[in-house]
């Protein structure tokens, strides 16, 4: 028997993202250069031709996501990557992909904003834009890695969720996670579960493109497969044709939400650290969770009963998980690199059960462990 030696490799976050995309089966990348996400595009430009996939540099971010959606309709797993200003431009097509139910993955390596902001510096300011950036009511899935390996792992999962639910999935990454290098051991190619979009099993003449098969996720053929159907961003009936009938509009928007909300129990992705007996629990994500982890360890050494919940999914917001924390803690601390975006959600589900304390920084620099430790000391009682 051959012994398989797993090799540790030194990877940058953005490199790990590309590795995850390749393992998930991504074969189409369209993008536009923007700091601090550009490495993803540059590596894709090299890797896509090697894997028989397609790379194209488009004229802007609107065009990039348009091409990504087109390629996905033609049957390819597709992605793009950008930062705040480009993410703003993509909002139009994020809405289209949601409405037309076209799987795609969008990476937003956040920079401090608004507008051109601080192009190479750190922020978590796009949490609400990722949730509500495109117009109208819509569900969305947003994942947030906090290490190089997690960026790899969550990229694979982003494709899986996107295919499973036929929905755009956003990877919301901060500049530290995107640019830092860590040693990681990548899993073997066939060791990860890779999901594919559901395909129709009926002959084309029986195919009704947007009829609910019971799972909320209709089967999706590729253009050219012989299943000719219509795709539109307009409200549509089960055949995909535009409609304004209230008895067709309401069921569509209802299905778009429930195909994801029915699985909320499956979408509670977090790491818990020392939370069992914690009187104060820190809720954090991205690079801030790393600082929080150290601060909690140091506080424990001092005898403080504190814990940490690291969020891996930001949207849909993990109400069930957070409610449990709020019920068992006296106080929670939400440190964030924005003026308080996830803390708003924590307060929303808190319903005055415990005190929610915020720690915010918006100057483009990281929140240090010492700052979180100090805050924990101040609020601990």
């Amino acid at each position, binding site marked *: 028997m051959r012994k398989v030696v797993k090799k540790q490799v030194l990877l940058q976050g953005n490199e790990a993202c590309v590795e995850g995309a390749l393992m998930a089966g991504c074969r*189409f990348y*369209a993008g536009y250069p923007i700091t601090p996400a550009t490495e993803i595009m540059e590596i894709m430009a090299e890797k896509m*031709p*090697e*894997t*028989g996939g*397609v790379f*194209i540099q*488009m*004229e*802007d971010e*609107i*065009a*990039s*996501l*348009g*091409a*990504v*959606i*087109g*390629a*996905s*309709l*033609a*049957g*390819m797993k*597709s992605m793009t990557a950008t930062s705040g200003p480009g993410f703003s431009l993509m909002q*139009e*097509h994020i809405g*289209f992909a949601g409405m037309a139910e076209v799987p795609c993955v969008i990476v937003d390596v956040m920079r401090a904003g608004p507008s051109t902001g601080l192009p190479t510096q750190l922020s978590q300011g796009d949490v609400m834009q990722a949730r509500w950036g495109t117009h109208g009511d819509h569900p969305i899935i947003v994942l947030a890695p906090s290490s190089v390996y997690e960026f790899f792992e969550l990229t694979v999962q982003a494709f899986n969720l996107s295919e499973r639910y036929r929905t755009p999935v956003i990877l919301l990454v901060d500049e530290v996670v995107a640019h830092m290098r860590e040693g990681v051991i990548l899993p073997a190619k066939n060791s990860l579960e890779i999901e594919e979009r559901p395909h129709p099993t009926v002959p084309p003449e029986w195919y009704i493109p947007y009829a609910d098969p019971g799972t909320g996720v209709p089967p999706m053929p*590729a*253009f*050219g*497969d*012989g299943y*000719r*159907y*219509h*795709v*539109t*961003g*307009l409200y549509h009936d089960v*055949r995909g*044709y*535009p409609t304004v009938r209230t008895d067709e509009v309401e069921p569509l928007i209802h299905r778009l939400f429930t195909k994801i909300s029915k699985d909320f129990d499956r979408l509670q992705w977090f790491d818990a650290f020392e939370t069992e007996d914690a009187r104060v629990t820190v809720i954090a994500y991205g690079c801030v969770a790393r600082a929080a982890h150290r601060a909690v360890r140091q506080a424990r050494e001092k005898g403080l009963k504190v814990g940490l919940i690291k969020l891996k999914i930001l949207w849909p917001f993990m109400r069930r998980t957070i409610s449990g924390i709020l019920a068992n803690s006296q106080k929670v601390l939400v440190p964030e690199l924005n003026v308080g975006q996830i803390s708003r959600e924590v307060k929303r589900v808190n319903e005055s059960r415990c005190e929610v304390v915020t720690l915010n920084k918006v100057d483009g620099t990281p929140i240090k462990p010492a700052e979180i430790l100090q805050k924990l000391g101040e609020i601990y009682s």
Partner: protein
Amino acid sequence: MRQTEHLVHKYLRSSKRFPHIWCAGCGIGIFMQALIRVIDQNEYSKDDIVLISGIGCSGRLPVYVDFNTLHTTHGRALTFATGIKLANPRLKVITVMGDGDAVAIGGNHFIHAARRNVEIASFVLNNSVYGMTGGQSSPTTPYGVITASAPYGNLEPDFDICRLAEAAGAVFVARATVYHTQLLDRLIDKALKKKGAAVVEVVSQCTTYAGHFLKLKSPVDMMKWQKNNSVTVEKAKQQSEAELEGKIVIGVLVDRERPSYHEQYQSLLAEKSKI
């Protein structure tokens, strides 16, 4: 024997609720029928055709026909088309856009699709107005005319879509009107067979809004205007610029060869692909 089934019935979607949304006398239906005629003559498989549109009156065209159809966002049809063609080069990719759609909000994509030379046949239905929103000025509205958004007269010069396509690098550029249906058929045929970015401007009429501000009362008046104001490319060569002022030059304007993006990408794949 009386013809009871028209050719278009072979291509219209039987499951789609009709009537269509276009006004009586609109030119879009004439173009749609011409496109169907040419596709039928060439015996293209319905499964291999992807018909993509943007937003506006022209944007509603794909839903009526039985191909792989995609109604995208305003001005962005060419971006989706680019992704589809590169993901599956076997497919015949066609876009239908309006004048505002293609050269106002979609101007950037229009330029770069032509420059990149992806094999996409594009048809720009130019009726000189934003019809669906109620008759506002578009980039092809003539200077000086009164529109819903220019109550004191349009202060902007109009845009020559074909010259833009030519300058940006399209390998096939042509113009017809919906009056000249035989020419229109020939140009659609050439565009569908061109290996690269092909653009055909189809001068059409909006009888509801443009007819009003151009002082042409009926669809017949508007089509007579197309007939009387058109000059073939061959005749235009013998006329001065002053003589051609306000005229519609119809025919093949550009037909040249340049490697398409996807041909070049296929060579790159042949060289680099490790699978």
